């Protein structure tokens, strides 16, 4: 009986990459959910959601959550959790304020020092988790308390600001316009168009390369449709942003980081090793992967990103407050799980986490415009998180 199935399955061997496609359905579904949610709020807010000024705000409000979600995705895929990111970002924001405002240190070295400090905090936590096998939940819970306390101490319980104007540009700046066309940032639009052109170029090249080696990708129509839709969405959003003040600086930083992390997780050996470690740490270790060092580095990375998020948040408010970053860890973790990561480790995609963060962000934004009270906003966000994960588990069991 087994011999027979072997023969029939053997024939199907090479070309069918069916299950690879199936793996992407979840990501398509997530994008679809985001689009539906956006359409819903566009309708219920009578068109406010897609107004250029609101769209700009949406990006600014969610940038730091998305940036931390990139690091959190790796942490969660590695089979851990980091509860300290909110406190760490708050502490770093405070540190930046003390350095730049009180001590009058130039903003460039201060920023670099802050990022290094973030890495050091990640290292301090990662050390116990990786080399002493202390559960990450406990280490980072401790970190959450410690750095919240240190932020309070550092700022003496007061708000410190304002920051130097150049530093504020990190959050409130837009890419400069060289054309001066009134009411429309032509440079931003051009950047958007170049980006779309590059995206299509790489996508076509990748497909050609696969075909050259004799592997079928997705069907041609699906390939074209997918690229056209993505290009359309990007151009549309760029157009809207350009008709306000243009592309925010922080959007550029965020996009570059997203691209970097997609590349690291999908194409680089270090990314592959994190997934292998999260899937089965013992097997990964016996395959020659230095699991301790990898876990350690994952937390260092998280620390740096939490620091960057803290800087962006402080620059956006133009003051550092002791309460900054409070509860951020929950939004970040929720974004990663809505994006399809598994709490058991080994599963999760960068784009999933980014879209998950946007789903949370659009809901926050839309509900606020609608005038839904903060209490009910929390309830709804909680239910959406639960529903997304139940949906995932249900689908997995069915498969």
């Amino acid at each position, binding site marked *: 009986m*087994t011999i027979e199935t*072997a023969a029939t399955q053997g024939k199907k*061997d090479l070309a*069918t990459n069916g*299950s690879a496609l199936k793996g992407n359905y979840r990501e398509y579904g997530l994008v679809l959910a985001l689009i539906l949610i956006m359409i819903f709020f566009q309708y219920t807010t009578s068109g406010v959601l897609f107004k250029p000024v609101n769209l700009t705000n949406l990006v600014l409000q969610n940038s730091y959550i998305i940036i931390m979600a990139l690091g959190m995705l790796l942490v969660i895929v590695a089979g851990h959790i980091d509860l300290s990111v909110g406190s760490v970002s708050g502490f770093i924001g405070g540190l930046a304020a003390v350095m730049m405002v009180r001590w009058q240190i130039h903003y460039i070295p201060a920023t670099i020092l802050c990022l290094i400090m973030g890495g050091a905090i990640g290292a301090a936590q990662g050390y116990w988790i990786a080399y002493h096998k202390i559960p990450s939940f406990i280490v980072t819970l401790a970190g959450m308390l410690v750095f919240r306390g240190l932020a309070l101490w550092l700022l003496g319980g007061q708000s410190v600001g304002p920051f130097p104007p150049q530093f504020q540009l990190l959050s409130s700046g837009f890419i400069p316009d060289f054309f001066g066309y009134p009411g429309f940032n032509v440079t931003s639009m051009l950047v958007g168009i170049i980006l779309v052109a590059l995206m299509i170029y790489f996508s076509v090249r990748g497909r050609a390369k696969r075909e050259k080696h004799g592997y079928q990708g997705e069907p041609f129509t699906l390939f074209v449709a997918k690229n056209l839709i993505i290009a359309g969405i990007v151009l549309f959003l760029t157009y809207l942003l350009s008709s306000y003040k243009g592309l925010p600086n922080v959007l550029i930083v965020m996009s570059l980081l997203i691209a970097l992390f997609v590349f690291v997780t999908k*194409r680089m*050996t270090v990314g*592959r090793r994190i997934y*292998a470690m999260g899937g*089965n740490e013992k097997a990964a270790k016996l395959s020659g992967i230095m699991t301790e060092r990898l876990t350690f580095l994952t937390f260092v990375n998280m620390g740096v990103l939490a620091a960057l998020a803290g800087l962006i948040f402080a620059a956006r408010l133009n003051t550092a407050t002791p309460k900054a970053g409070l509860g951020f860890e929950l939004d970040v973790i929720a974004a990663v799980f809505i994006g399809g990561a598994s709490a058991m480790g080994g599963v999760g995609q960068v784009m999933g986490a980014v879209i998950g963060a946007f789903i949370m962000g659009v809901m926050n934004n839309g509900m606020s415009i609608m005038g839904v009270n903060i209490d009910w906003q929390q309830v709804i966000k909680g239910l959406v998180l639960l529903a997304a994960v139940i949906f995932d588990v249900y689908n997995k069991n069915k498969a």
Partner: protein
Amino acid sequence: METILEMRNITKTFPGVKALNNVNLDVRKGEIHALVGENGAGKSTLMKVLSGVYPHGSYEGEIFYNGQEQHFRGISDSEKQGIIIIHQELALVPLLSIAENIFLGNEPSKFGIIDWHIAENRTRELLAKVGLKEDPLTLITNLGVGKQQLVEIAKALSKDVELLILDEPTASLNENDSDALLALLLEFKAHGISSILISHKLNEVGKVADRITVLRDGATIETLDKQDISEDRIVTSMVGRQLADRFPQREPNIGEVVFEVKDWVVHHHIHSERTVINGINLNVRRGEVVGIAGLMGAGRTEFAMSVFGKAYGRNISGEVFIKGRQVDVSTIGKAIDNGIAYVTEDRKTYGLNLIDHIKHNTTIANLNGVSHNGVIDDMAELKVANEYRRKTNIRSSSIYQKTGNLSGGNQQKVVLSKWLFANPDLLILDEPTRGIDVGAKYEIYTIINQLVSEGKSVLMISSEMPELLGVCDRIYVMNQGRLVGEMPASEASQEKIMRAIIRAEGKAS
């Protein structure tokens, strides 16, 4: 004599594998019925069907118990009827006491308040019945495996057992404990309790069983009565064919020494004063398959893992040579770089990322082989994964099938692919055919033959002596961390290997 259990035409299918095919089994009241068969013959699956682990509806066929048809939906259903199964891996909670374990989920209580006085007294009675002199408040973790087994049986007695199923109960017991356990079964028999005994130890089965049912490849071969029981008869029935047909032929083409270990000493990973491996010297030549025979606990896995980047043990000393050059094997990465690969005996825990697909599992031990400057070349990886899938004949829909959904044999082939792609000089195989069916075993042997014909060397650990005799060119015998014998396969036999072990045991004690 009255029949207590009858299983009729049981068929159980897993994706891609028919684990049971029209199996019939009947057990009489007050008999000890042995169930024997090779690994993967379907014994455990059959018992899981009986106890309701695989609920009614997930298999075909009928179960009659005490004359009535039964539709068990879970273990609690079968336990209510007095069918108690004791698994190979004991299901006791280590940090609870004997009494707490025995009455776990079944506590004598009023209004939810446990009456520990009753529980302890009843535990004392039960322990007396199984002949275990321990305080009911002793923690399980402080008992040896043999005594834990007795606690499991006492637990079964507490549930008014009528049919006791024991899955390899003596596998990890020494001879005294085994004898005590078998005597206990005979005593239960006198009290009218029936037992189903699953065992590989045919001498034990011959001693206590009234009847024996032999399973092979998921089918009932025959049921033998006591007067017909002989080891030869059982073996023929279990194997079903001549030894020669079970192993593919190979013309040995053996070259110079490729791998050599000198004065290898390893200490226990927790109790560092205990010596686990005590001065081992061995070598493997190019194109040679060398076996290590030994009993469970002889230290074979510990030896292999300690050589493989100190994955086991402490205070390791000794030298390793590859092609005459001394090499550093202090980390797993270095061992791999120096041309050593280790295929674990426990592929699910140590071998595979079960939630990921075949492609990623194939390349994970040698990502540098498909990447430049840390960037993976997609096309190269695809090519490698497809190539090894074909080479090792993995049956799957594509290289994108999750390894967790593959059968044991195909999972083992993925682990082999992973290590073949790492391109080692020496491949250490630890129980490479454990828990996989006979057909897949033959394929694994074929892969081994192919490897050595390409000039690689293989060091194979196996507890199945026929396998060692059928596949290896040379066999070392290990006992209590020492090598106690070495023989060319042409001169080796099961008796010779056993004699080497027994002689060493005699010296040691």
